[in-house]
């Protein structure tokens, strides 16, 4: 939080060419504020994940700018990446531990995170005893402990069944409303994108650039019934059309 930033997360004319010559991203400009939830959809391999990896610092971009406070990022991976030898609670403590948060400060925050994702009564279980949805919840709770301003989600619910996915979407939205973070979410599911976001971006096939940008006209809180709303269907249809165009 040392640098005063205009935006919670900002990409300016960002481009990325990997050492092997793969041109992953081309001239991507995007800024996200706290209280905004932006979702990127696009064909497989279009560089959506690379965008998150650059934001988090896992990759270094080759052109343009990326401005974000790296100490205040929560990153939720495709896999829950829970440590199998740690209980749910111990897993949630991990990131705080790595950042040297003392146990006195940590305990109430861990409790809060676990309660927010509804895993308080499962805190002594090991990951292998959890369902896929519960694993993802634990992974969310782990990122919540540091109370980040920016949350990056790399297709976190892709492996879940439809019902668990919708339930987690609901929960993620209520987290978003409570914590008011800036969210950047990657997914293949148009319904998920529209349901969660304030904005949906469509990315082209490689090299990835943003080819469409939609404001989502629904306020929060959102009930899961908006999925059957005509406006929801219309927007989904437009995004779907753009995606068809984006495929090579």
């Amino acid at each position, binding site marked *: 939080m040392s640098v005063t930033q205009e935006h919670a997360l900002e990409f300016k004319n960002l481009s990325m060419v990997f050492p092997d010559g793969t041109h992953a991203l081309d001239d991507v400009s995007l800024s996200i504020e706290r209280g905004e939830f932006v979702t990127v959809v696009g064909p497989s391999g279009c560089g959506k994940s690379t965008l998150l990896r650059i934001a988090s*610092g896992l990759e270094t971009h080759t052109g343009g700018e990326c401005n974000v406070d790296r100490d205040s990022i929560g*990153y939720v991976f*495709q896999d829950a990446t829970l440590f199998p*030898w740690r209980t749910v609670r111990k897993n949630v403590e991990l990131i705080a531990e790595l950042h040297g948060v003392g146990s006195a400060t940590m305990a109430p925050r861990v409790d809060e995170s676990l309660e927010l994702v509804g895993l308080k009564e499962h805190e002594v279980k090991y990951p292998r005893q959890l369902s896929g949805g519960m694993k993802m919840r634990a992974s969310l709770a782990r990122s919540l402990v540091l109370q980040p301003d920016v949350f990056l989600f790399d297709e976190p619910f892709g492996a879940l069944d439809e019902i668990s996915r919708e339930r987690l979407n609901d929960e993620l939205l209520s987290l978003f409303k409570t914590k008011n973070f800036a969210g950047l979410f990657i997914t293949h599911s148009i319904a998920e994108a529209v349901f969660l976001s304030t904005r949906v971006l469509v990315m082209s096939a490689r090299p990835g650039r943003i080819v469409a940008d939609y404001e989502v006209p629904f306020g929060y809180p959102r009930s899961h019934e908006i999925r059957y709303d005509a406006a929801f269907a219309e927007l989904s249809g437009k995004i779907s059309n753009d995606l068809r165009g984006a495929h090579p």
Partner: protein
Amino acid sequence: MSTDTVEPKRFEGMGRFVGPVGVFVLFIGFWYFTHHVLMSGPKKPLVPVPHDVVSDSFLTWNIERGAGGSRTGGGLVKLLEGLFESVQVAALGLAIAIALGFALATLMSQAKWVQNALWPFLIALQAMPILAFVPLIGTVIGFNFKARVMVCIIIAIFPIVANTLFGLLSVDRGYHELMTLNGASRMTRLVKLQFPAAMPSIFTGLQISAGLSVVGAVVGDFFFRQGEPGLGRLINLYQNSTAYEQMYGAVVMSALLGIAVFVMFGWIGNRIVGSWHEKRSS
């Protein structure tokens, strides 16, 4: 769901014992068969019957040297003394092999070039027949306790290094990225991620090495004969004085030691990683 899975499991539990017990009975049967049918006349004493082996070596406490014409003495007390000596050799050898093996594997996990530099020599150590080292060890270290420990280290170290290294290096990229994102140092990464993740693999290595250290202790006895006799020396001694019941007893005792060590490390491994590792817990 529960009724479907419980029944086959119970059957499987029974089956787990029926198999080994059956094979054991067959083995003992074959032993008697060898004595009574395959061995004829003067050869019969070479394969004494199991109940004689048990009664002479395990149920008799002590046979004094010279008693009843025995040139070596025998009985359980001699076996226990030999066992104690061999356990000391195996335990010390294994402990050193573990410490050294851990250190090597950890070093090798930290840089590719260290791994490349050391790996060929570990393979060489592993591939070289231990007998080839015997004159060398004897000349340099002597033919004593230390030499026997050395044999244990040489034959027990490879599985520890190989399995520990494999465990340390096969952590999924996602976990490493999680550590990277949160600014973990090499040390933190090792302690919080790589070592715990390597535990199941480390215990597989330990279990193999523990068994090998017993082999080393018994085999070492045959070459390095100074000091207190271990189980290997006893086998050799009884063989030379044709005390075959005693010799078989010493062989059985060596086997029991190997099995005990193997089971013990398996049990410790289960205690430590069984609560979380999917493959280890049933």
